[in-house]
């Protein structure tokens, strides 16, 4: 079905590589924010291409909530080894232990919001002036408004009303000391573009993107992955289901999708036919209509 939708528009790759090289040239200490998800995996491949036969000239930064899928961590360590990049881990647990943040309690507790504090600490400790991320404008309506070079102030905050205009392909990365820039090379890609790229480039992915059997909790019509740090009351039962994950975040905010798609081809078919958007499985976005904008204002990715 829909063969035409399965071709990746190559000009998006040319644009992304241009943006990555601009980041390398305009900043002194850039880093790639690496979550282990398909978008940041795509970003790493693009960076490899941008600097070949040289190495990627920046480290990968992983903000580790401690609530990861094990498969993601295995994949991360394999990838770092494979591309020969440096890995910097920012641990949310360290910030909890040091009393810089307090863990949320209750049924919907998540470490998603706490990540911001860890991210900003790592940026400051390593004096990063640019952080490349895999965010896309089609994901969410506040992201649709963000620039490719998005300036953050001394406190990591995004000022949505005072953004620099971006004209033609000009990127202006000049900043004051203390400020930093978030760089989004795949801003103009859609979820389908990313999957088609992964297929055409034959990029390996963490196994949780493919259908597998997993014990999940069913809560308000949503399937939650279970681990010993996920809240479960005595009445709730774990049920084995065939599922996969459409996005990969923290385990406590990423819902599973009933699916039998076990190859990239099948995943692409599933996405083309989907009636729910990608971030429809992200519980962190559902807290309010402006959840993403508010988190970004506070320094989120």
């Amino acid at each position, binding site marked *: 079905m829909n063969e035409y939708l399965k071709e990746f528009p190559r000009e998006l790759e*040319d644009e992304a590589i241009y943006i990555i090289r*601009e980041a390398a040239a305009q900043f002194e200490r850039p880093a790639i924010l690496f979550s282990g998800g398909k978008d940041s995996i795509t970003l790493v491949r693009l960076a490899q291409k941008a600097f070949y036969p040289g190495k990627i000239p920046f480290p990968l930064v992983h903000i580790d909530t401690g609530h990861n899928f094990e498969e993601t961590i295995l994949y991360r360590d394999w990838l770092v080894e494979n591309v020969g990049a440096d890995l910097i881990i920012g641990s949310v647990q360290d910030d909890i232990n040091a009393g810089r943040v307090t863990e949320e309690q209750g049924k919907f507790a998540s470490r998603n919001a706490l990540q911001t504090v860890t991210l900003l600490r790592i940026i400051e400790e390593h004096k990063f002036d640019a952080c490349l991320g895999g965010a896309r404008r089609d994901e969410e309506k506040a992201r649709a408004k963000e620039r490719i070079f998005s300036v953050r102030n001394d406190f990591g905050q995004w000022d949505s009303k005072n953004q620099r205009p*971006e004209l033609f392909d000009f990127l202006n990365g000049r900043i004051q000391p203390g400020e930093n820039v978030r760089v989004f090379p795949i801003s103009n890609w859609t979820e389908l573009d990313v999957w088609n790229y992964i297929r055409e480039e034959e990029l390996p992915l963490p196994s949780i993107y493919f259908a597998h059997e997993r014990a999940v909790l069913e809560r308000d019509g949503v399937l939650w992955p279970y681990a010993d740090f996920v809240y479960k009351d005595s009445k709730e039962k774990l049920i084995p289901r065939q599922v996969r994950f459409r996005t990969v975040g923290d385990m406590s905010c990423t819902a599973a999708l009933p699916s039998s798609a076990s190859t990239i081809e099948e995943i692409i078919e599933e996405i083309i036919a989907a009636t729910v958007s990608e971030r429809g499985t992200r519980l962190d976005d559902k807290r309010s209509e402006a959840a993403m*904008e508010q988190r970004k204002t506070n320094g989120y990715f």
Partner: protein
Amino acid sequence: MDVLRIATAGSVDDGKSTLIGRLLFETNSITKDKLEALEKASQRKGIGFLDLSLLTDGLIAEREQGITIDVAHIYFNTPKRKFIIADTPGHVEYTRNMITGASKANVSLILIDARHGIVEQTYRHFLIASLLCVPTVVVCINKMDLVAFSEKIFNNIQADFENLATSVDGFKPQLIFIPISSLLGDNLTSLSLQTPWYTGHSLLHILEHIQAVEPVSKKESRLPIQYVIRPRNERFHDFRGYAGRLLSGRLAVGDPVTVLPSGRSTRINKLLQYTHELQEAVAGQSFTLTLEDDLDISRGDMLVKSDEVPKVISEFKSDVCWLHQQPLLTNKTYLLQHGTSRTKAKVTHIQYVVDPIFQRKIESRETLGMNDIARVILRTAKPLPIDPYRVNKANGSFILIDETTNQTVGVGLNAL
């Protein structure tokens, strides 16, 4: 698969957001959860129908005030191609955003309310499309349902618009006129029975068939050097590659090339896209090249074919649009970014400011305010290999940066 970049523009309440919402809806580009979120948000605002503008007005302030403040990017596919819409606000004070949205557009979509005909904003939108040399302008005469789908009203507005277009002194985009109702969907994805007198195609059909890629590969070759790659490892010990994205033209292995501003020449040895070797690269592609001789080349230099060398100039006339609250001051030093190079620059003289409504030229001004469009003379510290914008868009444009605030304060299109 190719990509068509569309800029939309319209006045307040002329149905632009509804039009985009409709296009998404009719091409199955909006999912159930987004529709449900929209229903909830519409109910909260106390409106009985689906307010599709809430889809694109992504910021809290926009939803509070019910207006579009900033450029939003919207993506959808049809069997023919991928579409990127830069949805720009219609308010006068946001002209700078309209220019931002239109700067990369292949097509500009201008909406006109059939009841009101051409208004002040129509002039501004068309002037910007002409100034930026957007190849095609699709004029959507909207709310036809409110004028009983009158052919006469449609023809009158078309005639008025054609008059306006003739009066603009500059680039003449191709014009396409279409009667629509964005609320009811007439002529959007299929032809309407209400307009049997209309002989053209539906809007979606038009957008699917417009030529997306301008023939930039036929222009002269221009490659700004972005980054020098020196791996210094065992396997690639002596490798020295120059990375960049070709703005225009073509470059092939073996071509004699000249580096600007130094003027030194050599030949292309290899063209690399990752591990893949190209015989020829065309405009738009990002790649890395190696040269036969070791020349001193760094970021900000430009590489061109030796028989396509542009003039290198340090004084030129340009059309500038001012983007910032702090006015442009003549003889103040700004940073000018052209390609990958930055140099100090001054506006030495403002020849005239354009009044988009009355087509007048206002002379003897010493400063420019936000949203002003003016013809100025610039002087740069370093000579630049800049083309006239009308001849080569990608190599004829630049931005101005305020050195003290680092803000992007102006955009320029080289006139000569």
